């Protein structure tokens, strides 16, 4: 799943932040509204049975009906996603630093890392449930496994791609290794790290939900499986929408942190909020 949030670039002359916000998100919102309207009309006109495709109005009703249990499920999934993403990101950065500083580690580990990504999660998740039980642990492990890789790859590339001229400049000043790390390597790896983290954030929630499908005590995945086996397709859609919203929220959060952590990368692009 790919989520693209195009951040404000072009500024309307004289428009305030509200105007800018509208100009940036209005087209996407209009399209969404139009699609939902078309969907509603299609279902009403064709009289599609609700277990095949429920109308958006029915999905809304299902949301209202089950809203008591939803916060719990959503929180569980959010917890698993955040924990997995956090550990995954840390592991990705740690491995990237190790692999860029010691060549032999890179040669030994990189193939292994790639192999780890070829195992379908849908196959691995039941195994993890057998190993770690029905609690939060196997879900965190799945999220970790899907999120560490994008972080690892893009952080590694960013570290290897650090500007040689900058490193040479610091050397010419007589900088220590630690100073070179602080002034050149770390900051130049940040944009790459965040690019990987954005992709990881988009995968994290999906990873948690897939793990939950294999057996859980709580979570949006559990909500979806239960609804599915009860032929409550309207509730399945509620689950889908919540998963999407959660992914979007995580993605947006990473983007905001990215902006705060690398302000220079956003300088002079017309938006300084």
């Amino acid at each position, binding site marked *: 799943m790919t989520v693209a949030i195009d951040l404000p670039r072009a500024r309307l002359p004289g428009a305030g932040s509200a105007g800018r916000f509208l100009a940036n998100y209005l087209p996407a919102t209009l399209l969404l509204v139009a699609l939902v309207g078309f969907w509603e009309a299609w279902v009403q006109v064709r009289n599609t049975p609700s277990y095949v495709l429920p109308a958006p109005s029915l999905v809304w009703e299902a949301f209202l009906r089950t809203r008591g249990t939803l916060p719990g499920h959503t929180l569980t999934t959010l917890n698993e996603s955040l924990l997995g993403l956090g550990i995954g990101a840390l592991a990705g950065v740690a491995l990237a630093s190790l692999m860029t500083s010691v060549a032999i580690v890179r040669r030994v580990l990189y193939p292994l890392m790639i192999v780890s990504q070829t195992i379908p999660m849908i196959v691995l998740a039941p195994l993890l449930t057998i190993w770690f039980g029905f609690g939060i642990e196997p879900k965190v492990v799945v999220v970790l496994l899907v999120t560490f890789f994008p972080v690892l790859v893009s952080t590694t590339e960013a570290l290897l791609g650090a500007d040689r*001229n*900058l490193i*040479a*400049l*610091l*050397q*010419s*000043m*007589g*900088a220590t290794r630690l*100073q070179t790390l602080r*002034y*050149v390597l770390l*900051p*130049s790896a*940040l944009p790459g790290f965040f690019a990987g983290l954005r992709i990881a954030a988009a995968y994290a929630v999906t990873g948690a939900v897939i793990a939950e499908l294999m057996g859980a005590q709580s979570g949006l995945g559990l909500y979806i499986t239960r609804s599915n086996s009860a032929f409550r397709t309207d509730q399945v859609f509620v689950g889908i929408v919540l998963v999407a919203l959660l992914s979007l929220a995580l993605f947006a959060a990473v983007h905001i942190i990215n902006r705060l952590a*690398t*302000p*220079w*990368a956003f*300088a*002079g692009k017309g938006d300084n909020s």
Partner: protein
Amino acid sequence: MEPAIEVENLAHAYPGKPPVQAVMDVNMVAAEGEFVSLVGSSGCGKSTLLKVLAGLIRPTSGHASVDGQDATQSIGVAAYMPQGGVLLPWLRALANATLGATIAGVGRKEATSHARELFERFGLGGFESAWPSELSGGMQQRVALLRTFLTPRSTILLDEPFGALDAITRREMHAWLQDVWANERRTVLFVTHDVEEALTLSDRVYVMSKRPGTLVAEFRSPFPRPRGREIQTSPEFATLKGQLLDALEAASS
């Protein structure tokens, strides 16, 4: 007295197939407090020589020393401004200007207050907290020059520091540089391909041949300082400039 910069029989070839001989048989000196320029066409090896003195390149053979220290063994002896300036994109202008001083161990407060004073002088007033990407090419170059001068070293190596500046700003920087140099008397090795700039600023000017670069001529610029328009438009200056251009053309063909 030992010269501040001393280069003997220096040669350097960049590895490759075949290796690229950048400089060969380079012999030069700069006395302490002397302003020496190196002129030559693009790609003649001027920058290579500077990098050797900055300790960034270990030469294939020969000897180079800066302030009594072997430049082929040590790094960070001289303050070095690479071509194009080179700023850290993630540091604001002021932090970039104080970077060399900070790394050399100067207190942050002291370095910052010193830099603030010079920002106005450099035509950078008001841009202290701008990111490098928000500065024009000329401003970036001036921040880099400032950084080099704020680095507490007695020898300064400048690689085409005014390349990106317009003629007017360049003249202002020439006046500033002469002024600072007259006050501080640090040793400067200045790389340029602008003959007039070299004659205006320097005590002596070396001419480098095309690759493999070697020093083929040496000129003394005898004019009284500070050197402004009157000097630059004088017949004596024009004559010397003509001779230097002749030497440069002969060395570059």
